């Protein structure tokens, strides 16, 4: 077998293992996970619509403002999360399915039903004061992280080849968390609209909206990304060896962070200045943890990118520097940009890199075969390299 054949075989193996470029069909009547997904997302959506329509009668303006602002906020996070999924891209359809799970099923059909009764049980067992201080932090991390995380079990059953690595768990978990966060934020905004018996509804809601926007960066999106990375490690996938200890550690850390966040009021007590300090500490811990989870899980994705594009480097379609950058981390990308000579050259190099990404995606879609779109993607790279106009 020649070197070229070896590279092509490695590309085929990487594509098969990662599921990169695989299509996803949502409607699967023979799949019980499909029916359970429909049932729970449908039930959650109906419950939320009934809630929102009731609230709209009293706080219609707040509902509109909160939906628009959190919609824009969510769009920003959507863009960012898609941006960090830069190697073996996840299916957009599956990402949308994950988002809807977090928005409707995990929150309204599952966790919301259990949170109040569990808080009430804490109160019955240890007293109301104890429940107010510590109940939320000992309830939501279990109900909400499990409800969100179990969505990944359904996604694995719906698309086993597309949820192949711990990084897939990271990306899908982040989108489940995003869906959960947006609808929870809207609910908090509506809740605060009634704080002064319904007077000054928009003003009250705006302070909650701004607070949730500022502090929400380290909330459900991060917890779920970490939890779901851990869940995939715990379960193991064909492309991701089972690592139960690592999986439990990540899931436990996500729950611990969630619990700390919810118990900040109880920890700080009447020492008001402690609250912002604790916010900073917990947000810092959350960012540290999510960065660790990302760095642990992303190398496998990078190796897939390298395997898919290595035959192109051997054939001279991309340079060794471009291949290293495609499959590299942030520092490599930074070095690639810094190596440019002037603005025009930097722009040209950025275009080359984006075109190389296009070629990788086309190769993944075609299963590594040279079809018309793959050949066109290669021709685009050649055109950009030659500096020819469109």
């Amino acid at each position, binding site marked *: 077998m020649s070197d070229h054949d070896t590279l092509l075989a490695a590309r085929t193996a990487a594509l098969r293992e990662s599921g990169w470029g695989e299509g996803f069909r949502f409607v699967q009547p*023979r799949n*019980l*996970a499909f029916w359970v997904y429909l049932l729970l997302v449908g039930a959650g959506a109906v419950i939320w619509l009934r809630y929102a329509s009731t609230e709209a009668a009293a706080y219609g303006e707040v509902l509109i403002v909160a939906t628009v602002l959190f919609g824009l906020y969510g769009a920003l996070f959507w863009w960012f999360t898609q941006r960090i999924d830069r190697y073996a891209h996840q299916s957009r359809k599956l990402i949308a399915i994950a988002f809807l799970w977090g928005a409707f099923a995990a929150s309204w059909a*599952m966790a919301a039903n259990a949170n109040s009764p569990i808080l009430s049980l804490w109160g*019955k067992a240890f007293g109301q004061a104890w429940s107010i201080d510590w109940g939320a932090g000992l309830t939501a991390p279990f109900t909400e992280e499990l*409800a969100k995380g179990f969505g990944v*079990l359904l996604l*694995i059953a719906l698309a086993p080849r597309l949820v192949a690595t711990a990084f897939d768990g990271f990306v899908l978990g982040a989108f489940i968390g995003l869906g959960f966060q947006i609808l929870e934020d809207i609910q908090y905004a509506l809740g605060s609209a009634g704080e*002064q018996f319904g007077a000054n509804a928009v003003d009250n809601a705006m302070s909650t909206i701004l607070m949730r926007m500022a502090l929400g960066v380290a909330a459900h999106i991060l917890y779920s990304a970490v939890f779901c990375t851990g869940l995939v490690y715990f379960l193991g996938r064909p492309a991701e060896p089972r690592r139960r200890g690592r999986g439990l550690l990540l899931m436990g850390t996500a729950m611990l962070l969630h619990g700390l966040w919810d118990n900040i009021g109880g920890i700080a007590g009447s020492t008001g200045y402690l609250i912002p300090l604790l916010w900073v500490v917990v947000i810092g811990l959350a960012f540290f943890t999510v960065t660790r989870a990302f760095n642990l899980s992303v190398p496998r994705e990078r190796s897939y990118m390298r395997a898919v594009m290595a035959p192109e480097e051997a054939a001279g379609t991309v340079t060794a520097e471009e291949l290293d950058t495609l499959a590299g981390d942030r520092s490599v990308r930074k070095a690639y940009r810094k190596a440019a000579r002037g603005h025009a050259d930097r722009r040209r190099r950025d275009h080359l890199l984006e075109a190389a990404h296009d070629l990788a995606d086309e190769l993944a879609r075609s299963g590594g075969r040279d079809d018309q779109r793959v050949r066109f993607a290669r021709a685009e790279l050649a055109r950009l390299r030659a500096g020819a106009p469109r």
Partner: protein
Amino acid sequence: MANADAARPRDWVPVERRWLGLDRATIPPALVVLALAILMAVVVPAVDHAVPGGTRVRAGDEVALRGGISFVPATGWILTDGVLRGREPRAGAGSTATVTDGPVALTVRTAPFTGTPTALLEQIKDTTDALNGSHGLHITGDVQAVQTAGGQRGVIARYRGTSSDGAIAAFVVDGTGVEVVVTGPPDVPGDPSAAIAGMIASIAPEGGAG
């Protein structure tokens, strides 16, 4: 065999892998998720419902609320929401408290409010009407003045709902609005009105209840 596998469409489930037409491999994860949903939506609320709760009020107890408001609950009633003075959480008292006596419940809620008691009652009425529509509570009687033992002036009105009758009282104490909602079935055994009147009369700024 390998050729047959290669030719099989992705969504094709071989007959020997089916159970009631479903892909057997998808059943365990789907049932695990469904079981968690049932646990959360059915089992946990049922357990909470089955476990008795609340604190029986003893003579001398005082309920603390956010905004430095307190009231003296009637002895023998059950405190189902809220905290007693001296047992406040580290994060401070909450904004609601409920005491019950059988089917009768008295709920007190506090929040910042700068208008008059009449304006507060009007605000409560508007919000309740908007949220509940025809299913909500409808004020039926005249609005009457009421005064607490400590001299706080407020207003009170009777209301009628689809399944309960009661009264709503409103006070404004040092920038804190106080809403009192009494609910109960139309025919209540015994007469709780003296106990209710006593609790409303006991509403006071911190330390002044009673």
